């Protein structure tokens, strides 16, 4: 393992913030999905919650439940992975350690690359774990094995989580430019809201932050079928641009 990757992996493993994020991401999606389906079936939910549950679980098939899970997983992947990414970059400024990354034989660009790589990989691992637990939970509460259609949705659920993970390093870039992890958190919240609006107004297929969710079934099976390779390609293209911009930003960083 390269020195930068080894060092960043140690820092990530030891970070209490990263550990707490991993627990929240891995458990929140399966618990919420299963809880909503069970709550809707029980008929005991009252008030506004009952209406929301009925709307969210209107499609009572396993495929419908996986669509509900896709909505939750892609948002949680964006929030959790985005928070992790903004933290691994922003902490250098908030902890006052960024100056120590100057005048080293390991360039800051390599260090930034290692941060992005590890944050994205950990996010993929977190969302895959959350997705698998969610699929398992749905199979248990539905009491049936996945039919071919549902199995396809399950794979898309995992793929949507992984694709979303590739988008999260952009919040590390925002934290780096603003020299504050709070700026990254602000951008994250704004992006989640923007994705909702863009989808509402019909532009979701070309908005990288909405594409994984739509592809994994969050917008229904018809919308999922409309997602083509050209739409999916926006995600790696965006991720590549962010990678280039982040490495360049860190190589040119000054502490004036």
């Amino acid at each position: 393992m390269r020195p930068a990757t080894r060092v960043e992996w140690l820092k990530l493993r030891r970070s209490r913030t990263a550990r707490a994020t991993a627990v929240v991401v891995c458990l929140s999606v399966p618990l919420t999905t299963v809880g909503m389906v069970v709550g809707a079936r029980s008929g005991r939910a009252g008030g506004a919650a009952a209406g929301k549950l009925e709307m969210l679980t209107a499609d009572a098939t396993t495929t419908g439940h996986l669509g509900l899970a896709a909505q939750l997983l892609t948002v949680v992947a964006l929030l959790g992975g985005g928070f992790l990414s903004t933290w691994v970059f922003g902490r250098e400024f908030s902890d006052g350690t960024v100056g120590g990354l100057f005048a080293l034989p390991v360039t800051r660009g390599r260090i930034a690359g290692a941060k992005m790589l590890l944050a994205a990989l950990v996010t993929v691992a977190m969302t895959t774990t959350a997705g698998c637990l969610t699929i398992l939970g749905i199979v248990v509460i539905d009491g049936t094995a996945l039919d071919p259609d549902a199995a396809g949705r399950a794979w898309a659920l995992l793929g949507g989580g992984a694709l979303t993970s590739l988008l999260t390093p952009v919040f590390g870039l925002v934290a780096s430019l603003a020299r504050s992890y709070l700026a990254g958190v602000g951008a994250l919240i704004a992006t989640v809201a923007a994705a909702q609006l863009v989808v509402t107004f019909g532009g979701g297929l070309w908005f990288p932050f909405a594409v994984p969710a739509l592809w994994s079934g969050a917008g229904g099976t018809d919308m999922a079928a409309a997602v083509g390779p050209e739409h999916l390609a926006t995600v790696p293209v965006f991720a590549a641009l962010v990678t280039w911009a982040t490495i360049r930003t860190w190589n040119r960083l000054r502490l004036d």
Partner: protein
Amino acid sequence: MSTVVASLSAVDVVRCYGTDRALDGASLDVQPGEVHALIGFNGAGKSTLMKSFMGMSRPDSGVVRVLGAAVDAAGPDVWRRVGHMIESPLAYPDLTVDENLGVAAALHLVPPRAARVRAEDLLTRLDLGAWRGRRASQLSHGNRQRLQIACATIGLPDVLVLDEPTSALDPRGVVLVRGLLEDARARGCGVLVSSHHLDEVSRIADRISVMHRGRLIGALPPGGLDLERTFFELVHAYDTSVPS
């Protein structure tokens, strides 16, 4: 005939922040095997000059070199021979003392076996052994500063730049760090150190330069008597001859 390459050299360096000239034609050099102390008031430009040497600040004009290489063009072969502690340290609060030393060694490309030997030596010399398993966030301010100095020196640098390295240390810690700097000098390391403590720099420095309003305005004799008085006379004379 071979010429000795300066560990650090700055010639006519200017750095402005708006209308404020943080560095106003500063020139300074540090030779191998020399401890060069930089003293001056807060805001005199000491930290800005040190940051220019480490690539943290880009001068508007002038030439800044480290081991003969222009800072912007210096590569890994230069930087692996450099250690520093300027304002923000390389010590992560989540990591233990041992882990922080391991991080510093890895980023200075010190081979693992040599890193372990050097870490043991530094833990002993800076009296940090009792805290080696503690997170940096749990250390006292003084012990954290010792850890930061250990991280800066773990690569056995040929150039060492330390900004206020003893500001949080008790008298015993000051003596320990002084011993470390004396050893660095003995093996040919060029050391640039800033401090507000004239007595301390007088004991260790080979040269003492006075910085004021972004310029090097004079020197004090190491080991001289009443350095404080000489320092204020220099500053007063400069302010009188060059009104702000």
